């Protein structure tokens, strides 16, 4: 085993207010498997940070830790009591509730039952309007397409009035056109609501399209190896030359990281598991 490269970057302290701060966070599974090694990272309020890495870099582990679904083995995670919402690769809607019912449940939990059913129904309708699904509240999740379900999941996350939105490859299973539209949607909502977004993806262009910063993680164990600021003006297009240029720089860096793991004896295919 090669030793992990330790290239810690301190969280930014130039007057920004971090919504989420990870300080030397490590996660060990069982006795041996080091999934995350001393990850230090911060996401400011209203900042969009994309986490990028090859398979096995512990991206999802990291999100689970921030979401409180799992505990770190060492290090500290400071979420400043921010409300945290999360979207998964699957919509994870409850099939026994209607589209509107799914959102109303989120509203009900968030308000600790201090709202009336009528208020929640009205609010759910507003949230569905934000994701252009106002006419589909009475439908069941399975009656919608994959992209529409993911938008319902987004509306449900918004219902939590969260300050931090964690997204675990939320558009990974969608076709390119739907994904493009959802990028526009997400960007608009993120700006209007000044959310802090931590967005995990293995798609380099998606990361460059969306992020204020693209944070590169190494694999096995996951550590932060590089932090690319993205200064391209918004709105960006996934197929623009500028996005492609930065994406290819990042891909090259990622390739180096993947090559580090290539074992000479093993006849592995040269794929990186990365969509360029």
């Amino acid at each position, binding site marked *: 085993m090669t030793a992990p490269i330790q290239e810690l970057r301190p969280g930014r302290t130039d007057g920004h207010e971090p919504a989420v701060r990870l300080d030397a966070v490590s996660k060990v599974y069982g006795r041996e498997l080091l999934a995350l090694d001393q990850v230090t990272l911060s996401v400011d309020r209203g900042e969009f940070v994309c986490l990028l890495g090859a398979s096995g870099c512990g991206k999802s582990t990291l999100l689970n830790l921030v979401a409180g679904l799992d505990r770190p083995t060492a290090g500290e995670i400071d979420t400043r009591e921010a409300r945290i919402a999360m979207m998964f690769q699957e919509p*994870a809607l409850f099939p*026994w509730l209607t589209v509107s019912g799914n959102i109303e449940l989120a509203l009900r939990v968030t308000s600790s039952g201090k709202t009336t059913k009528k208020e929640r129904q009205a609010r759910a309708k507003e949230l569905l309007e934000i994701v*252009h699904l106002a006419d589909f509240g009475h439908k069941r999740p*399975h009656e919608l397409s994959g992209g529409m379900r993911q938008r319902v999941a987004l509306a*449900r996350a918004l219902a939590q009035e969260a300050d931090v939105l964690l997204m675990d490859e939320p558009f990974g299973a969608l076709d390119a056109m739907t994904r493009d*539209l959802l990028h*526009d949607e997400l960007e608009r909502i993120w700006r209007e609501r000044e959310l802090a977004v931590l967005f995990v993806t293995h798609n380099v262009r998606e990361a460059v399209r969306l992020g204020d910063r693209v944070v590169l993680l190494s694999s096995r164990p996951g550590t932060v190896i590089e932090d690319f600021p993205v200064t391209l003006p918004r709105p960006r297009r996934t197929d623009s030359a500028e996005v492609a240029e930065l994406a290819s720089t990042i891909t090259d860096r990622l390739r180096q990281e993947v090559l580090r793991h290539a074992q000479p004896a093993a006849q592995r295919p040269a794929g990186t598991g990365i969509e360029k």
Partner: protein
Amino acid sequence: MTADLSQHIAGLDALELSHRERQSLASRIWARTWPMLSAIALVLAVWELVVLSGWRPEYVLPGPFTVLADLWNRLGEAEFYQAVAVTMRRAVTGFAVAVLVGLVVGAAVSRVKPLRAALGSLITGLQTMPSIAWFPLAILFFKLSESAILFVVVLGAAPSIANGLIAGVDYTPPILLRAGHILGLRRLALYRHVILPASLPSFLSGLKQGWAFAWRSLMAGELLVIIAHQASIGEQLDNARELSDAPGLLATMIVILVIGIVVDMCFGAADNALRRRWGLDQGVG
């Protein structure tokens, strides 16, 4: 830009939605009934052939027409309905108690780890125990009374119902648990809003299996525990045997079979409705 975006989205949505057309009611009913009717016709034909072959004399094995005529006569008698009413009352009471017991035990076992270690395999063991083996003990406890019958019916059905609930809780999709956790649902709230609804399909199949066990135990009970002055289906079956009334015996057996099938079909319909609502019926056909 925004108007353009929302139009784009509306266009994609319209393209992506699947339009499933439902067949008309008449054709759906016909599609379900004709295989059943053919199966019944086939059984009756084979039965008639066996009778015609002279394998057993007619007073032991009467033909289908004799039996159906006997059944028709019974359907006109008040005594028949009283017997069915008594049996169904026992079935419903026993099953209701079994559901209650199954729910409580299932919920406790699925939630409390030591209880699961202690009782988990015992419940499955109880399920495999033939219910008739309980009757000597039941009669010892309750004498020849309705309580003895109910005791065995509950013991027969409750383990299946509890197991259905436990399996449903165990196989709640982890992604839904995580989603519930993210929404802020904890402990009882998580149970109420996620785990219990998610275990509904499994619970329903537990109910269905529980009903089958309850019905079998009830018939065994009514044959063994005959209570004076109280007609029941099992008692009629026993009477028919004692009087060597073969047509009556077979007619009663048909009644038992039909009641079992009809109740099972009700559970099947509930299961189908649930699958359709949840979208679990997609993919095939």
